[in-house]
């Protein structure tokens, strides 16, 4: 089993996309998940529903709407052009944006659950020990929510690696920019190049298995009693 240069390029691109997307999702997802876990606002329901929507819609449908809205005639496209960013479809940045939207619930929901499970008490204790809310977040919430962050990272990363429909729609299959592994495998399959498809698919499965295993392995379950 050997991988072609194009296959290797697709793998590198995929890992880059998944890493950047996961990192950004953790940064963006944290305040969102925190708000969802703590708020009593009547907007909580609607916002939670919007976050979960990517679970409902078929990926190609999400991709199609992103293509429309981020295109030159869509509001998103007009915004990115006005900001001097150009158009996002058919670019790596566009894939990142699409992946963030697509994988959002896979990061936000584990974080939200982790935050909700902590309850008020650790926050109150930290406040009585002179810790400001931000201080509390970094010194208490973050370490206590570690299992949630692990789950969010694993799911966000894996889901982005496995993403296909959305990428297909707004990627344009440009080598080195938007031709990720899932698309490359699909191309092999569609072109009936089954041997190459198997090789690439197997290497992705093995690699992902190793990454996930390592992540779970290096996260010993910490004691939760106190």
């Amino acid at each position, binding site marked *: 089993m050997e991988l072609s240069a194009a296959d290797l390029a697709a793998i590198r691109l995929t890992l880059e996309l998944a890493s950047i997307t996961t990192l950004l999702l953790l940064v963006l997802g944290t305040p969102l998940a925190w708000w969802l876990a703590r708020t009593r606002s009547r907007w909580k329901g609607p916002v939670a529903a919007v976050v979960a929507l990517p679970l409902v819609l078929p990926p190609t449908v999400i991709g199609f709407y992103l*293509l429309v809205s981020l295109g*030159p*005639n869509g509001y998103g496209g007009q915004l990115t052009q006005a900001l001097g960013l150009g158009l996002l479809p058919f670019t790596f940045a566009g894939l990142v944006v699409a992946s963030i939207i697509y994988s959002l619930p896979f990061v936000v929901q584990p974080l939200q659950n982790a935050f909700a499970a902590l309850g008020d008490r650790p926050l109150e204790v930290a406040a009585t020990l002179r810790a400001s809310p931000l201080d509390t977040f970094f010194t208490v919430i973050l370490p206590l929510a570690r299992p949630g962050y692990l789950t969010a990272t694993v799911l966000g990363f894996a889901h982005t690696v496995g993403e296909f429909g959305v990428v297909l729609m707004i990627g*344009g*299959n440009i080598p080195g920019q938007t031709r990720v592994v899932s698309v490359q495998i699909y191309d092999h*399959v569609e072109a009936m190049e089954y041997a190459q498809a198997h090789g690439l698919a197997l290497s992705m499965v093995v690699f992902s298995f190793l990454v996930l295993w390592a992540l779970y392995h290096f996260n010993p379950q910490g004691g939760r009693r106190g």
Partner: protein
Amino acid sequence: MPFPRLLAPLLLMLSMSVQAEEVSVAVAANFTAPMQKITTEFEKDTGHKVQLAFGATGKFYAQIRNGAPFQMLLSADDETPAKLEREGLTLAGSRFTYAVGSLVLWSAQPGYVDADGTVLRQGGFKKIALANPRLAPYGKAAMEVLAALGLADTLAPRFVQGENITQTFQFVSTGNAELGFVALSQVMQEGRIRTGSAWRVPDRLHTPIRQDAVILATGRDNAAATALARYLQGEKARAIIRAFGYQI
């Protein structure tokens, strides 16, 4: 069975529960609209029932090889039916060309593409869409056109590839690519280009985009499959096919 065939369709409908059969057909996605229309007419005329599944030809090929319950395939190309035939998965001698696709260079903006396609040489665009030439006959034809015009290499950096002709059309229709090679059937309505601007690519610039149909081995004894194959080659169906921008 000559007897029912001699009688009026009314009699045929009365006896439908006994005579009518059902056929499951895998249809190339680009042929969705004409096939729906043809099927309506076919069911009305013959009493047979048709189950249609639309999708990518490559996917259908993989499914058929793995025992998918289709009795007939309307492919987007001529290679796949031939391949199935070589593999002994079809009813021998049932293969025929049901439509020949026409390629257009199209833009959603009116006046963008001129009648001779010189816009390709002027090159004032950022992205040009075409279907993945490895997967889609229209993509392959588009590459042949560009090669014939000597533009394949210069334009390659601006390619965005759709996995199929439908996606390619979406790239162009949403304006994300200024122009692209799509199927005439996608932009034509009642004999005219619906919106935007187009260059009808001369047939001599690429090998014909033949779309072949074949009855699968599983449809051997299916009267509806035989009837549909015959119907598709009849004048009534061909008129519909032409109206949708295909040649035949």
